[in-house]
């Protein structure tokens, strides 16, 4: 859609914020210049091969969600089988095992709202502090957080599990939510974004008018950060929605599983003796799991693409 913002244009839309409305204006100065390159059919075809690689599995998933368990076995993977069972599959996915899929969906939403929402909120506050305040230990905090990005997150999993189990947090939603609350990448992005999007004079003006720090933040700074917030929110949402390892080690009780863990259990169920083979539901459930995120990325693309572009300015 809109081309990402450039260095010479401000990283955020001015004042009150509808980046959607502003984006087309920003696109203007940037239209490609070096001799107006000719479009190339060859390059388009070659790039289409990469597109084919990325979409064929998704198409496969969509087609096979329309098949019954029997149809999966005896029809070609890239074409429909004789019976179209998509609606039955969707209904069965939601009702199988007393509607446990619905429960997993609600769990996932809970983890996303509290985990990703909380992570975004903490990143906004922290990024704002790093960008606009001088405080002792600031450089230290920044160094430690950036250094921590290089620590393999899963290396922390075992000790975190043991610590949480001592605190009695394992097998509760908190065991999944609390570790999701920290997003170093989100903090970094908000820091870059806040330093470029919020004019310090504006904050000074608000303070002179007698607004307290909290009020200044919520009424002056927050609206200016909108595209950055959408970006961080989307990426933390993906991280939480797609999380597998953390819930795998933290949760025993399948009542607290997120969708990812639940689908994996359904899939390995075929292996257990006497287990119900429900690959058609695994496939339909997978499709239902990815649709919300794909829709979010498609609908919000002008926000997050400009947010990402702003992040790369400082690199």
């Amino acid at each position, binding site marked *: 859609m809109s081309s990402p913002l450039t260095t010479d244009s401000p990283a955020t839309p001015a004042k009150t914020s509808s980046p959607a409305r502003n984006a087309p204006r920003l696109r203007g100065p940037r239209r490609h210049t070096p001799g107006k390159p000719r479009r190339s059919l060859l390059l388009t075809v070659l790039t289409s091969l990469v597109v084919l690689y990325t979409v064929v599995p998704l198409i*496969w998933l969509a087609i096979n969600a329309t098949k019954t368990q029997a149809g999966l076995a005896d029809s070609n993977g890239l074409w429909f089988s004789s019976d179209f069972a998509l609606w039955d599959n969707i209904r069965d996915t939601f009702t199988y095992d007393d509607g446990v899929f619905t429960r997993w969906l609600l769990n996932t939403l809970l983890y996303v709202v509290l985990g990703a929402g909380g992570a975004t909120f903490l990143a906004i506050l922290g990024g704002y502090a790093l960008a606009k305040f001088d405080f002792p230990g600031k450089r230290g905090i920044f160094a430690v957080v950036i250094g921590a990005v290089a*620590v393999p997150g899963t290396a922390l*999993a075992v000790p975190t599990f043991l610590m949480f189990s001592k605190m009695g947090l394992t097998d509760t939603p908190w065991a999944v939510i609390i570790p999701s609350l920290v997003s170093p990448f989100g903090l970094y992005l908000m820091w870059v974004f806040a330093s470029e999007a919020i004019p310090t004079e504006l904050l000074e003006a608000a303070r002179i008018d007698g607004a307290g720090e909290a009020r200044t933040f919520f009424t002056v700074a927050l609206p200016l950060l909108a595209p950055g917030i959408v970006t961080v929110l989307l990426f933390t949402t993906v991280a939480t929605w797609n999380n597998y390892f953390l819930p795998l*080690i933290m949760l025993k009780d399948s009542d607290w599983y997120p969708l990812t863990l639940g689908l994996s259990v359904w899939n390995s169920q075929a292996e257990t003796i006497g287990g119900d083979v429900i690959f058609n539901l695994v496939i339909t459930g997978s499709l239902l799991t990815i649709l919300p995120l794909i829709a979010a990325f498609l609908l919000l693309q002008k926000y997050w693409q400009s947010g990402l572009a702003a992040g790369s300015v400082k*690199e």
Partner: protein
Amino acid sequence: MTTLQPPAAAEPRPAPPPARRDRRSWTGWGFIGPFVAVFALVFLAPIAYSIYLSLFRDQLIGGTTFVGVDNYTQALKDDQFWAALGRVSLFLAVQVPIMLGIALLVALVLDSGRLYGKSFFRITIFLPYAVPAVVATLMWGFMYGTKYGLVGDINEAFGVSLPDPLSPDLVLASIGNIVTWEFVGYNMLIFYSALRVIPHSLYEAAEIDGAGQIRVITAIKLPAIRGALVIATIFSIIGSFQLFNEPNILRPLARNAITTDYTPNYYTYSLSFNGQQHNYSATVAIIMGVITMVIAYVVQLRGMRKGA
């Protein structure tokens, strides 16, 4: 983001600040405090705890005893650990260059402005990033099937017999394909975003000098996005060394090919949750963490120096 700052200790203690500055410093903490608190709980505390754990051993007789670096010497002589590390190193050496190479080529093509329907390509290639590793692995796992999967369909349709992607010889490559599929678009977008902010005056100057497309790429574009290349490489190294989800989810389909010590991370997981060897598991995790950080740091130093 591309430079690690010196640790906090290096910062000189400021002289007693004026009253106003003092007030502001507290305000700053009010905003960053919550992040720092949670960060300490879920990052710093587990690191400290795992170092503590790695110095002890839990035995049936005698209970928990302090053993110093015994766990570390054990790990360094552990064939299972080295085999797992070898596997992810091979993965790293082959998969990462392929993935980043494709991502870079696509980003350069998109940036060249020579495609029809550019935004369609950009968003479509990025889409797999929104697909959870679980779904990606299940999907590819089904397609890999030689009986009912896509591989089976191809065998049937063309009367060929493709090798089983889930056999011990090929399963690492099959996992590499899944990981490439998941992250090629994400890396492409990082490169593309970096390419977009190169000042256009540079291209105009190059054009006046009569530089061709290839020359513009090697002399202007690649050096300009070196930071993004280094970051993407470091993240890919971290990702490869942490490999767990894909082999773990694929295992039910390939029991013979994927063992529970297939990757270092899978090994620590099995040690902890199947073997109850928490102390040894923490030791292996720390060793992997140190190896990862050292390699990431070396890549960063080299990447930043090259041509600078």
